[in-house]
């Protein structure tokens, strides 16, 4: 039972950390801080995966988000008026609506997670090495089509995104509109 208590504790700890960092994302004025808060939120989620014994996914999440959020930070600095947050500028709108939507979403999701009877917890978790192996078999076996589609999707979106993002040829179009 101690294992379960420890698991519960770490789950809650990292989970609350993730939520807290998630809130920081929208409360800080500095854009780099905002992006890095999101990174730490995602890292805490990765740690939650580790607590839930999904080792591969946890490490993967921690790894992927480092890059993703660093790029995010760069874009924040590029595209915001006040990336250092010195002006303490308010960058939000329709606050009340958003708060309400968030609150309703929270209540609904909480109700769904606590009300139903989820049945007994599974006991036998495959070991980390076995999980990785099983996941590989799953990916390259039954779910291969989905996996390959995902791969193609990401390739397509990479190419498309690059196409959209590169500078258009100058053909008398001014950028001053």
């Amino acid at each position: 039972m101690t294992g379960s208590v420890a698991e519960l504790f770490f789950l809650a700890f990292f989970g609350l950390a993730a939520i807290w960092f998630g809130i920081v994302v929208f409360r800080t004025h500095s854009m780099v801080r905002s992006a890095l808060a999101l990174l730490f939120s995602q890292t805490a989620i990765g740690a939650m995966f580790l607590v839930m014994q999904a080792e591969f996914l946890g490490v993967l999440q921690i790894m992927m988000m480092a890059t993703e959020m660093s790029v995010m930070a760069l874009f924040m600095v590029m595209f915001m008026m006040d990336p250092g947050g010195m002006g303490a500028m308010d960058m939000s709108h329709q606050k009340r609506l958003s708060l309400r939507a968030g609150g309703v979403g929270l209540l609904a999701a909480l109700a769904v997670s606590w009300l139903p009877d989820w049945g007994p917890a599974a006991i036998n978790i495959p070991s980390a090495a076995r999980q990785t192996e099983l996941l590989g078999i799953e990916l390259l076996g039954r779910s291969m089509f989905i996996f390959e589609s995902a791969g193609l999707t990401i390739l397509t979106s990479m190419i498309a995104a690059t196409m959209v993002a590169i500078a258009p040829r100058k053909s008398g179009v001014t950028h001053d509109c």
Partner: protein
Amino acid sequence: MLGANQGMMSGLRRLIANAMARDLCGFVVPGPDVARAHGLDFAGAGLHLAATPRHANVLVVVGPLPVGLLDAATVAYAQMPRPRAILALGANLIDPLPPADATGPLTQDGLVGALAQLRRVLATEAFSSEVSDFDAPVLQTRIEYTCPMHPEVLSDEPGNCPKCGMTLLPKETSAGGHSGHQPKESTPVHPPPATAEAPAQDTCPMHPEVLSDEPGNCPKCGMTLLPKETSAGGHSGHQPKESTPAAVHAAHNHTVHATAEAPAQYTCPMHPEVLSDEPGKCPKCGMFLVPVEEKAVDHSGHAGHEGHTGGEVIDGIEPHFMSMVDLTRNMPASADGLKMEWIEVPFGPFFPGLAGGLGLSLTLDGDAVAETQVQGAVNEAITAKGMSPAEFIDHFANLSPLSPVASRQLACLALENAAGIAVDNKTATARTATVERERIASHLGWLVNLATQTGLVWMERRAAALQLSVQAASRDQILANAGSLRMFLHRLNKTPLLRTKLASNGRITQGVSLLGPVARAQGLALDARTDDAVYEALGFEVLTQDGGDALARLYQRCDEIGQSLELIARAKGLAVAQIESLDGVSGTGKAVVETPRGAAHLTVELDGGTLANAMYQLPCAAHMELLGDMIKDQEIGDALVAIGSLDLSPWGLPA
């Protein structure tokens, strides 16, 4: 020791102080190149050099510095962490710097002696329980408060902006007390920090220093770099140079509000024929109508400032919304079409790899150079009137510390021409050979800088050692050294990737009159030596390259080193030009000498044995003008290499 760190000299601290005394790390002003030209060998003396004063604990002052550089050196000193010491070689007046902790003459022995002296001082006095702050007028700042949105609001007191009610933010201005904003002299916006440890440190952020928490731009809030928009109505064309430190969005709010107050018309983005006085949806396609822009601008004149906090609501746009479109409208766009904020970063006057004293200020768009400002001359012009010839020669040679021999030669030639003295052929040849020796040393010094810029450590060390060995060597020593010199050049040519790094970098597009190796690398056979009978007798021929880029300049200088070696071999001796006295002679004389950087001209007027007037033209002035176009849109590393490839000497140029 004035730069001691806070703390009692306890046992552990004694140990640390001893370690510090043995691990000296120097920051050289005006630069290692000038020091080497004076024959100083820091590596030989056991002094490591740091790229920034933050990582150094000794400020090495080499030779007398002009006032502007002394101020910059003071800032560098203030940026060094304590304990810090000053080592002055051949420099007596270093005000506003505190007095030197160790001094010596400007020779290698002087350096070694001064270092030993400094080690003793550091080992015993690195820590002190009473530490006073270092302060100098050049470090003073004054805090002003300004509104991030309304830069025109300036106040000496903290408070709220009278226009929009936002909290005013502090920004620093220099104590000079001008209220006009110059980008150089202020750092915006964060609240003043609580200095962390140790004695409060005056890290003056405001000067063209090798350090970077500097002038005028907060790289974080970047707002400093926004164009200044002056009036509510018209966008008055941006002037990036004059941007004020605090964020400048004076105009944009007004425009947005204007759309609300004016009876703006709304139209459908798809159906321009649909016009409406009310916001809403298009009757044809259901899209939101957008305000017609020109109308809004027309009316912005009377929009005024009232109602800033008022509650006018435009459909879809919240009150107080700051329009980014307006903010970015007049911002300069980079080559890739994105309008990004630019930061202005000083490079020099003590930047590693650039000529010592060369002050640049690059406006960077990302890490590409958008604009270049050269801070120009580092020393005052000499007033020749009334000087004796010997005095003038010394002054003129000191004017360009990177090539004093060629300057001396030039001064002597001009004076001899004025006095009508003829020099016998042997002496003339020997003098010429000395100039050629300096050319070798100077080109090697340039190679050291190139190596510093490109991170080729072996080349830096080797070239510096060769430069020091050639600089003051006799003819026989040089010829004995010629083999290793040629081998070095050979290895340099074989360095992988150096060719690709330099090729097609630093091309010159402008039609500026070029001089010296830069011109010859461009394929122009311009050389003052061609008209010189002495050189003709030595069998001199002009060498050229036709690349016109940094690589061609490298090859050109390597070839010239080889050529100079041959010239020295053909000449039978070395002699430095000198003139004893020219009593009672009057006359005018002109001379031209091909210095390592190009032809230098001098005209002197003698009046009764003293100088009446001297007019000179040193080679780098024309090249300075090349910088802006040459490095535009280049990545910083490339830009610095391109600047370096011109081998600029900022010394003795007209201000």
